[in-house]
């Protein structure tokens, strides 16, 4: 598959020592089942990529007619579509910055301190992840209607920050849990102030978690249809545009743009993994020194 090149950078923990083999036939069946499951997961993605190269006749992009690169050539010619893409990208960047900042500090509070109301706070942070998107989108719209705020670009950003915060908190916290709090105490004992300790010790240490959280927030934002569809006003994002087109058949340029986005996200992931590795090497170096 086109994506197999992405294996090497993800090599995480070393493989566990092989255990005594338990029934090779069963292993085979398991492997084939797993392969089929992954085919099921990837088939629509592959379909999407392939049909970006379809030399379709007329407006519809349903049957395979032959290979062409023309849709890649005029990928940015459709004004409405490019506007939607531009909105999606800028909204994703803004809401990623917002949600990552807010969520990281909340994660620090939960991971670093004991305080009254901590359990309630944890539960409260969990709730948005357990709420269906329709409910979030509809209730937010109901409030904007009551207060008299007209929906548009800004309300989309507000909503995206809202539903991303919890995921950022969870991601950053799991990084915090693996950290030795004594290092921060040592810095303070050696005379570093609150601020110096935060910027020179805490932040560099949690940076891998923060980066992963940012990638996640970006992916959540750029993908969202449900919440956005309630709070978009006159603004269109890429998922909204695709949804509008989906009933009649999506034009091939949408396949092309989605493929480009997929490549961008994969590159972001790759960059994230490479940075994480550098950071890990730096940490090991620091530990030796």
């Amino acid at each position, binding site marked *: 598959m086109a994506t197999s090149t992405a294996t090497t950078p993800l090599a995480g923990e070393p493989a566990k020592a092989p255990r005594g083999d338990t029934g090779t036939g069963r292993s085979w069946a398991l492997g084939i089942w*797993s392969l089929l499951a992954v085919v*099921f997961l990837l088939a629509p993605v592959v379909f999407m990529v392939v049909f970006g190269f379809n030399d379709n006749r007329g407006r519809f992009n349903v049957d395979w007619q032959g290979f062409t690169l023309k849709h890649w050539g005029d990928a940015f010619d459709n004004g409405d579509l490019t506007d939607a893409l531009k909105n999606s990208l800028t909204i994703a960047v803004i809401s990623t910055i917002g949600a990552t900042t807010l969520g990281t500090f909340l994660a620090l509070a939960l991971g670093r301190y004991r*305080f009254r109301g901590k359990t309630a706070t944890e539960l409260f942070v969990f709730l948005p992840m357990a709420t269906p*998107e329709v409910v979030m989108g509809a209730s937010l719209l*109901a409030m904007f209607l009551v207060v008299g705020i007209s929906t548009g670009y800004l309300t989309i950003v507000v909503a995206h920050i*809202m539903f991303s915060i919890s995921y950022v908190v*969870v991601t950053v916290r799991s990084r915090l849990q693996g950290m030795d709090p004594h290092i921060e105490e040592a810095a303070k004992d050696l005379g570093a102030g609150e601020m110096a300790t935060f910027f020179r010790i805490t932040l560099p240490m949690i940076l891998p978690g923060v980066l992963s959280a940012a990638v996640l927030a970006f992916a959540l934002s750029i993908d969202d249809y449900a919440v956005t569809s309630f709070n978009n006003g006159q603004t269109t994002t890429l998922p909204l545009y695709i949804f509008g087109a989906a009933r009649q058949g999506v034009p091939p340029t949408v396949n092309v743009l989605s493929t480009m986005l997929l490549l961008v996200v994969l590159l972001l992931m790759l960059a994230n993994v490479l940075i994480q590795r550098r950071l890990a090497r730096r940490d090991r170096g620091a530990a030796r020194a």
Partner: protein
Amino acid sequence: MRLRERLLPWWFAGPALLWLLLFFAIPLVNQLSVSLMSGNSEVGYDLTWSFSVYGDAISTYGDQFVRSVLYAGAATLIDLVIAFPLAYFIAYKAGRWRPFWLLMVVMPFFVSQVMRTASWKLMINDDGPIVSVLRDVGLLGTDGRLDATAGAVILGIAYNFLPFMVLPLYAALERIDRRLIEAATDLHASHFTAFRKVTVPLAIPGVFAGSLLVFIPATGDFINAAILGSPNNLMIGNVVQSKFLTVLDYPTAAALSFLLMTAILILIAIFGRLLGTRTLTEAAS
């Protein structure tokens, strides 16, 4: 100084909590009051405490409610059946290829859900490859179709939320201490007995977590029904959306959405009781 120290965590947590309060919690509560208003979009709405909207909503849209639960339940079961062997394989058999398999599992998330669903529609199209194969082998009648059926919607939902089932199952299986399984086989349990009596019970938290993570978004989903279904397959999310955005019947929409949220909160409370809230919140990561 003591006060300052006590307040410090709130300085960190405050902005995010305020954001969630303003744009998540207050809207949820506000919804209750919107649902009790009456009026229409021309003359405006007043709070009249008309609880009758709830009775009306349930009797008018009972079908869609039941359908949402049935579709979501069926999709959750399908996902469990697909995901358990897959998660087991990744956790125990994939060896050093594990990160690659995990990447394949999350790969669909890198394409917009709407786009993936549109691709599904393309694949199960009446003239598409899948339908013609199914017709040839006789699983579908000669003019049988997948597009615009309940099966298409359920399969679409199962497809869209499958990774949410695989990941917690994988996490639960991976966490199991292998020595327990070895101990069972050393004590002459067959591999199957060891699997049934050791592995499965220890994976139960993952099963619960995965089911919750699939079932909740699935009940509220409206993308699949809108793109893959016919008007006979509409779910409660579709009703909420059209009431809010097309019909502009805000009280009914708010009431339906509030009912959905209440049902889900009850479900979470039950799960929390069964598993403990810690497992629940951890499962979400």
